[in-house]
């Protein structure tokens, strides 16, 4: 998990020096919590995938996985899940990076206001926000009725139940998870460095591209990783705002769990999603390693 290493290593540098640190005991409750609430259920789920078999399985322990991959829609939806997650990560990055940068350079008062603005969505429920997008995007919704009212368009724009609507809704929810890590990283970059670059003759654009941007990469990586992994698990937003083509795998898993009580197949589906996610992260970590150098520069 090289992708995770950059932020983790910095945290470790301040606390990890003595071999046995008494403060480490403070991590025990978290550790116990993770084992009981995450690791154990994960193992139970893994067991379920190979033991909770349909009656006609005939001892074939992999039958649930076979059922998953034989379903034409399943594989398509798995691919779509990753595509939507990638798109929302990129959108969050495109909006979140300039926003976090603005927070870094603004006066403390404005930084506070911008911080509150990005956190406000957390105060209302996911469902309320998603339904609000429906009201805005529908043929009879706010945007279309306004544009038609002004005579700008004759027929309503196709907004509701499109991939664009899904990305809008998901970006709205996920943006704080991109902005906060970015802001944390950026606010730690010494402003004198950019000034030094300017003194040495760099244009503002060049100083940004060669000095600030590389130093902010750890924030970009951790923010993107957080948003990407969270996006993989979405299903309400795509179901309410997207077309059936935007269905995410979690929606299929939910149907199996809630309606069909087919927990064996649901577990297999979840494991496939986890497995493919880990594979993607592994590949990404290989790719990202090239840039490790920036992280190294920063911590030295």
């Amino acid at each position, binding site marked *: 998990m090289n992708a995770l290493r950059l932020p983790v290593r910095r945290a470790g540098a301040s606390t990890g020096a003595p071999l046995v640190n008494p403060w480490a005991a403070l991590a025990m409750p978290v550790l116990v919590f993770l084992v009981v609430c995450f690791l154990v259920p994960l193992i139970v789920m893994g067991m379920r995938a190979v033991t909770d078999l349909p009656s006609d399985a005939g001892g074939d322990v992999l039958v649930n996985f076979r*059922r998953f991959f034989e*379903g*034409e*829609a*399943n594989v*398509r*939806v798995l691919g*779509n899940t990753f595509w939507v997650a990638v798109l929302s990560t990129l959108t969050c990055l495109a909006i979140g990076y300039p926003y976090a940068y603005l927070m870094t350079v603004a006066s403390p008062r404005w930084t506070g206001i911008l911080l509150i603005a990005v956190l406000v969505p957390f105060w209302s429920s996911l469902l309320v926000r998603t339904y609000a997008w*429906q009201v805005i995007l*529908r*043929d*009879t919704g706010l945007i279309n009725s306004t544009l038609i009212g002004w005579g700008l368009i004759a027929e309503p724009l196709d907004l*509701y*139940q499109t991939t664009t609507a899904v990305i809008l809704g998901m970006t709205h929810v996920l943006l704080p998870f991109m902005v906060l890590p970015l802001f944390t990283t950026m606010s730690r970059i010494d402003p004198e460095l950019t000034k030094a670059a300017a003194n040495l003759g760099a244009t503002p654009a060049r100083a940004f591209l060669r000095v600030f941007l590389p130093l902010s990469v750890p924030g970009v990586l951790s923010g993107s990783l957080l948003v990407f992994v969270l996006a993989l698990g979405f299903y309400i937003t795509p*179901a*309410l705002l997207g*077309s*059936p*083509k935007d*269905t995410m795998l979690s929606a*299929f898993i939910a*149907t199996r*769990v*809630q*309606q*069909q*009580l087919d*927990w064996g197949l649901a577990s297999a589906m979840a494991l496939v999603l986890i497995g493919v996610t880990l594979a993607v992260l592994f590949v990404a970590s290989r790719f990202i390693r090239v840039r490790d150098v920036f992280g190294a520069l920063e911590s030295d």
Partner: protein
Amino acid sequence: MVRVGRTVAFSVVVGLVATACSTGGGGPAESPAATDGGSTADICTAPPKHEGTTLTFASFGGVYQEAQRSGWLEPYSKLTGVTFQESEESSNATIKAQVESGNVEWDVVDVGNDFGLDGNADLLEPLDYNLIKKDEIIEGFASTYRVADITYGVVLAYNTDKTAGKVPEGWADFFDLAKFPGKRGLWKYSTGGVLEFALMADGVAPGDLYPLDIDRALAKLDTIKDEIVWWNSGAESQELIGSGEVAMSMIWNGRGYSAKHTDGKPVEIQWNQQILTADYFVVPKGTPNKQIAMEFIAWATCAENNAAVSEKIPYGPTNKNAKPNPAVVPDLAVSNVNDTTAYFDDAYLIDNFDEIDGKFQAWLTQ
């Protein structure tokens, strides 16, 4: 035909229910009921008392559960002393989790038509048909582990502003974009009626729907695919048809009713080719209150009590002898049954879900 004795008993109970709903007031008909009921004295009018007992009742919340509360739970508490604890989050998965973990909290659960057949035998108690009057329940709506408590229709609703005064006569008109321009609302769930409606639109008789010709249904749906707006919840369907976002929608009749009467929107229901279906009472296996749960279910499905829910929501009785309030009768699915009415084959839909849903999802995500 209703026998004379039952008619008498019935009118008595209408009185009882009315008294229970209002506050106080004399129930002048009470004593004749006791004598007339005679030997059958009677779970319907005098269920056994259990002071200090609590039953946990799980249903789907909202106006629906309010109607169940005032129609059944509160009157039953007055009669028997049984108090109710409620959950508004009924879910098949929760029943399974409770039974498998050996920690059964729910005693009586209101579930949809996709649950409670023999496939779920390991999760449910067999119902006590010595108490529950199976012969009075609509044919096919009572089986080993479940008995229907309310009936509803999956129907065609249309926005009269969008249909310009024309009335769609059935699902063929729903699929006729030339005759009725505009978008169409459908539930994004493979075994909720969408395939059956496509087949009826294509000319299949309501009695010949099963086994489903899935490919034929999907080919028919393909003809309107670009005009479909998919919904996931009853609230969404009500909003879509009320706002005119869609000209017509498949809808649960209670939601169509709310669009018209609660929201005041120009919405009408076409009862032709409705699918009549039900919610069911089940008792999770291993509940410590099994006996009292059975008594309550028997009481709530009696002719005298079963229609009480229809007072507040247009979901109809399942007991053939129940007499709902005449004011709501026109809005109930059971009152609008005719020779075009279809019924789900729940066992078929459950047994073949993998194939049906697999094909449906493959078509949807194309």
